[in-house]
């Protein structure tokens, strides 16, 4: 992917922010390039919204700085930053109609667009979001999904230095979400407006982000393209954050000759682990890298079917290995047809995508060990 080039449009430098005793941001470092669509992914409470509000000037950092276009924004009022934000709560003006909500930024002293022009813009945006028919309705009479689109529209309707979008698709139903995702992608590609997009949904992040940042406990764990994130996750936290079903993590130790030996004693892998013998490590295997049947893979495992779950054209199969550990894999529907619980199966694992991590510790997730 492109988009990692260009000057930094948004930068957060060592930002600390706490609310009372709760630390929201803990030395956050983040740069978003000009025109880039950046997805910030993390669980709830990781500091995503605070990051956005800090950029917008709605929250003031305790220390550290926010830069927009290379300028320090300390003390600059939100309305002077030229960014637009879509709130997770929508933050629509409940006493106004959808039209007035959309037109609000255009009427503000910052933009002060003539009414006729504003009308054109509002209708363009509404059309884009499929809410043209709702414009005259009071916000209170809209469904959650409709409100979310109005909120998104209020962002898109105006020119902005950057869009800050806080879970803008979270309340849409699945179908609409997919359509909107595509729409957003298209808008992003066309407008090339710098976008900082917050989500807890890894699929969304992977689909939309030119680059992705993974945030946890107020710190960025890793930033990178989707390939970086997928193939070279910084640690098990990041690895777990992406991909459904979740990545399989098999505990084991480093053998005397530097190989990986699974803890349950099932198997040994002839990969070189750059760690001292006896170190506790984990082997990460993506469910899509495991196939049913014994042929072709460098590693073959045996177990019994524990549960199967149909995912559209594919089937997620959970297999219980000999030692009792469970493995998830995704198999084509045809391949998985006829599998019953407790049927014995053989699995083959593709070796090229295997991940190796340190063992998780109480204080931090295990980091990836580069082979």
């Amino acid at each position, binding site marked *: 992917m492109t988009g990692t080039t260009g000057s930094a449009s948004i930068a957060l430098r060592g930002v600390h922010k706490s609310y009372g005793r709760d630390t929201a941001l803990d030395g956050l470092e983040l740069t978003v390039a000009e025109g880039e669509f950046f997805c910030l992914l993390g669980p709830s409470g990781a500091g995503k919204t605070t990051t956005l509000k800090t950029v917008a000037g709605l929250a003031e950092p305790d220390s550290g700085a926010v830069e927009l276009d290379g300028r320090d924004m300390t*003390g600059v*009022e939100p309305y002077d930053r030229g960014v637009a934000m879509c709130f997770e709560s929508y933050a629509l003006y409940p006493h106004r109609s959808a039209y007035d909500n959309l037109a609000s930024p*255009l009427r503000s002293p910052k933009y002060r667009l003539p009414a006729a*022009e504003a009308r054109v813009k509002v209708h363009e945006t509404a059309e884009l979001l499929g809410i043209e028919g709702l414009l005259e309705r009071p916000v209170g009479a809209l469904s959650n999904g409709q409100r979310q689109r109005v909120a998104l529209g209020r962002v898109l309707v105006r*020119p902005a230095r950057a869009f800050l979008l806080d879970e803008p698709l979270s309340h849409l139903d699945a179908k609409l979400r997919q359509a909107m995702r595509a729409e957003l992608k298209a808008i992003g590609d066309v407008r*090339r*407006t710098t976008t900082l997009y917050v989500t807890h949904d890894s699929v969304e992040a992977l689909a939309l982000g030119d680059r992705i940042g993974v945030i946890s406990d107020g710190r960025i764990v890793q930033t990178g393209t989707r390939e970086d994130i997928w193939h070279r996750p910084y640690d098990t936290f990041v690895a777990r954050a992406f991909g459904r079903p979740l990545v399989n993590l098999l505990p084991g130790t480093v053998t005397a000759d530097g190989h990986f030996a699974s803890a349950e004693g099932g198997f040994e892998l002839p990969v070189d682990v750059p760690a001292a013998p006896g170190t506790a490590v984990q082997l990460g295997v993506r469910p899509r890298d495991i196939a049913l049947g014994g042929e072709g893979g460098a590693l073959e495992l045996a177990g019994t079917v524990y549960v199967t779950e149909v995912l559209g054209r594919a089937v997620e199969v959970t297999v219980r290995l000999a030692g009792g550990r469970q493995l998830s894999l995704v198999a084509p529907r045809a391949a998985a047809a006829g599998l019953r619980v407790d049927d014995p199966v053989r699995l083959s694992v593709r070796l090229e995508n295997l991940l190796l991590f340190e063992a998780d510790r109480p204080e931090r997730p295990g980091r990836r060990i580069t082979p």
Partner: protein
Amino acid sequence: MNSSTEADHGAASSDDAAVAGAPEKASAAVPGPPAERGVPKWRRTLRPYLLIVPALLLTGGILYPFGLGLYYTVFDFAASKPQPDFVGLENYRRIFTDSSFWDSAWVTVLYAVGAAAVETVLGVAVALLLHRSTLVGRVLEKVLILPLMIAPVIAAIIWKLMLQPSVGVVNHLLRPFGLGGVQWTDTPTGALLSSIAVDVWVYTPFVAILALAGLRSLPASPFEAAAVDGAGWWFTFRKLTMPMLWPYVLVAVIFRFMDSLKVFDIIYALTEGGPGDSTVVLQIRAYLEAIRFQRYSFGLSYMIVLWAVVYLAAMVLVRYLGRIQNRAAEVPK
């Protein structure tokens, strides 16, 4: 107000310059450059104070005499002693060693707790009943506020007239039931209860209106969920309505409790503190001492003590209110 708006003006005008010609630029992809300079930190820190200080000045100015009053309490100023001496805390010592103070304090607490409790229970009950929005309720709701509009001192006089056993209308109406001889304010208990009743009459609407407003702004979904679950009325009331309603009601209760601790006009007009000393609440005693008997410093000390009592009670209640409101605010977004 002024100072705060200036701050906003300053900020606004500086960017107006920065984005001059914004309408033309609006269709461009990117707005003008961000403002060069931010609002200095001290001004941002000061902002909330600027908003609140006028209110403090306005009331504080009025309260200057209060400080003067406080100052007088360390003297023994009285009409009979126009050349006062400094007496230190003697006035306070006298108050606290005087059994009549403790009697008054007890009556005051009884009155305030009684009035506030009845008003809360009755007010919430009336609000709940009105909230059902039946035809009867909708009609009555329009006149709910009426008693509050009669000045308490006049209300007390009208009530006194109505409660008068010989010519009062209440006993006239009760006579057919054989209760024509009730002597409402003639016994210590009766006088206290009658005073509380007048307080309740005047101020229950205050609590009811705030409770009703609170009820009407509660979200509907938890109640719908409870109804779907088949939760009983009592369960819904106890587990849903009250916890959510309480912050609204508590503000009203605090105001009522504090105001009843310093009740004056109702009792003054209804019983003047009698019979005996049975309804001599603290402010009545303070009034008698300071104004009627012109023992000015001593009466003032009484009021300062009363004020301290109210202040402490308020502190406890307000802290509680803060906790309650925070808890209410923590309901997930």
